[in-house]
């Protein structure tokens, strides 16, 4: 199956290459990426990083990778209450509605032609040779973009990531390199959605460069993926004093993998990763984090909460890697899950590698059931069992939302979460 898809991809690459006017370094990069992909193939469960996540269901289809001709913006009901996206990435192709002041958007081609500084080319923070999905994205991403935040943004910037499988199965591959200027702050919301009657796979690669003292909040809002497949790789490098917070709200998608690779490269940098996962049906959600403490006096925190219902699977692999010399490191990590059915599965793998001696590092992974005492307490006050259960699930899983940067965003996220639990939020507001 995977072999057929690879062959299909190779044929499409040759066709695209002939039609393309691209030349130079980017084309070479694409060729090398394709070679790497063809050589390595897609990972299987024999691969340690994919041990509990079989890609087989997602690799059954012959995805179209060519950029669609349509110029129309989709009219999707994305997250209710959130203004329409300012930037769309439709099958990886940008459509700009309006950019906030202080934000610049460039195609990577333009940067390459202009002989821009090398660090602004994509591929800085990810492993093209060693990671099949990064290679896939690098080979095909229709429009690698560079987004630069030069001034602090007063409002969150909303980016709609939509893969449209109307006529055939489609692979949508957004590619974005973001640079957050020194001392500025911004909130970026990546809103993932699937459209169309055919299967889709979104394979997004985001690279974030946080200059000294930059502060960035990122929401990966995976609410509109329906039964689609999605692999997201977010790689960030934080310079000294920079702060990054990432919330992954994983409420939809048949098979979702989120790779968050964070490098704390400058002293005093701080990264916080939060995850809320609701998995029901046969959904599989796999969170993979790698927190690299490269510099001293950095701190990191990871808090993931998950619900696994019915026949769903939630996987969490969290690696904290403290490099030699990264003294005075504070690193915390916790994944807590409720396993709500005998057929649901939770796999949690905290991995610590510490090569410095002045380090405070803790991790915790807990899998449990609903607290029966709490359930009885609620029922004993007249709250029906079904409702009491939902209230407890909601209360358990919402904790990572508490730190969201604004009340408005928190309320939106809570509302979305409540909808997925089918909890009438009005009664609980």
């Amino acid at each position, binding site marked *: 199956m995977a072999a057929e898809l690879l062959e299909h991809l190779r044929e499409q690459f040759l066709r695209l290459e002939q039609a393309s006017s691209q030349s130079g370094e980017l084309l070479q990069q694409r060729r090398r990426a394709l070679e790497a992909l063809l050589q390595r193939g897609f990972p299987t469960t024999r691969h340690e990083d994919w041990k509990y996540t079989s890609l087989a269901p997602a690799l059954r289809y012959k995805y179209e990778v060519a950029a669609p001709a349509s110029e129309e913006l989709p009219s999707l009901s994305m997250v209710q209450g959130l203004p329409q996206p300012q930037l769309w990435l439709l099958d990886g192709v940008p459509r700009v509605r309006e950019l906030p002041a202080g934000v610049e958007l460039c195609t990577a081609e333009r940067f390459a032609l202009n002989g821009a500084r090398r660090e602004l080319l994509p591929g800085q923070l990810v492993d093209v040779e060693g990671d099949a999905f990064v290679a896939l994205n690098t080979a095909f991403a229709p429009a690698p973009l560079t987004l630069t935040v030069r001034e602090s943004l007063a409002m969150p910037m909303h980016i709609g990531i939509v893969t449209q499988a109307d006529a055939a199965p489609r692979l949508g591959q957004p590619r974005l390199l973001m640079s957050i200027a020194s001392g500025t702050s911004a909130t970026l919301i990546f809103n993932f959605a699937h459209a169309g009657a055919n299967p889709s796979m979104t394979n997004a690669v985001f690279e974030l460069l946080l200059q000294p003292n930059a502060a960035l909040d990122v929401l990966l809002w995976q609410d509109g993926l329906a039964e689609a497949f999605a692999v997201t790789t977010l790689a960030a490098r934080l310079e000294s004093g920079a702060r990054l917070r990432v919330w992954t709200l994983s409420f939809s998608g048949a098979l979702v993998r989120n790779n968050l690779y964070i490098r704390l490269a400058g002293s005093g940098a701080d990264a916080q990763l939060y995850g809320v996962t609701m998995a029901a049906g046969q959904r599989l959600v796999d969170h993979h984090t790698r927190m690299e403490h490269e510099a001293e006096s950095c701190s990191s925190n990871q808090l993931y909460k998950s619900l696994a219902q019915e026949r769903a699977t939630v996987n969490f692999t969290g690696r904290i890697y403290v490099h030699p010399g990264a003294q005075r490191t504070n690193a915390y990590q916790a994944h807590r899950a409720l396993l709500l059915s005998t057929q649901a599965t939770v796999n949690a793998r905290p991995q610590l590698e510490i090569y410095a001696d002045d380090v405070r590092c803790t991790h915790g992974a807990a899998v449990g059931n609903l*607290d029966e*005492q*709490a359930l*009885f*307490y*609620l*029922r*004993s*006050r*007249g*709250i*029906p*069992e079904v*409702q*009491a259960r939902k*209230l*407890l699930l*909601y*209360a*358990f899983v*919402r*904790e990572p939302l508490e730190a969201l940067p604004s009340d408005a965003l928190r309320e939106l996220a809570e509302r979305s979460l409540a909808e997925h639990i089918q909890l009438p939020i009005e*009664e*609980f*507001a």
Partner: protein
Amino acid sequence: MGALLQIRNLHVAIEGKEILRGVSLDVYAGEVHAIMGPNGSGKSTLAAVLAGREEYEVLEGTVLFDGQNLLEMEPEERARAGLFLAFQYPVEIPGVSMATFLRTALNEVRKARGQEPLDPIQFLSYARERMGWLGMEPDFLQRAVNEGFSGGEKKRGEIFQLLLLEPRLAILDETDSGLDIDALKIVASGVNRMRSPERAFVVITHYQRLLNYIVPDVVHVLFDGRIVRTGGRELALELEERGYDWLRSEGELVLPTLGEQ
């Protein structure tokens, strides 16, 4: 009028061990009954069974609440019918605010009584008035259910819920345990405020101290899973003076209980 609560020959086991061994009790509207007894006598088991805890197995006997078969009702149905248990150990529920919890509960109970639900603003003024009666901190409603509460705060919270939900029968399970005298007085004042001809109380306690403030109409002594004595207020004083050992020395003596008279 029949008894609001009628217990007949109730036998209850947990994990195969019989704890209640034939309890009979009638509680009429307007009455306050105290149930006293040494540790392990079955007091809390009685409270738990009445509230509907599923881990207890009823071996024999009947319980009628306002003429309905209580033992067939779900815990939430019991609450909506007007039964309330003040927990000995109120449960902490992180992530659920007191306001959310109590407004949801109150509106369920109101629905069962044929009353309109309260919106958040109506609820707030209704709740604040009652918080005032118990001298509670203003941030109480914003806190997570019982989370990080001191023992006294938890017990006061239970009485607050009693004031809020206005049940027909309130069972107080060791509400006095762990309270200092000031907290005890506050708790008792809340209960006394709620005494009415339509409402009954079953006050479960190890010590008679609470009964100085909540004066009972009837005092029962539960011993080894049975009610071995029933009397007036003075029985509680006698227990305080003599302890429970004199009951033990009387061995298996079973005195006629109210239900069998």
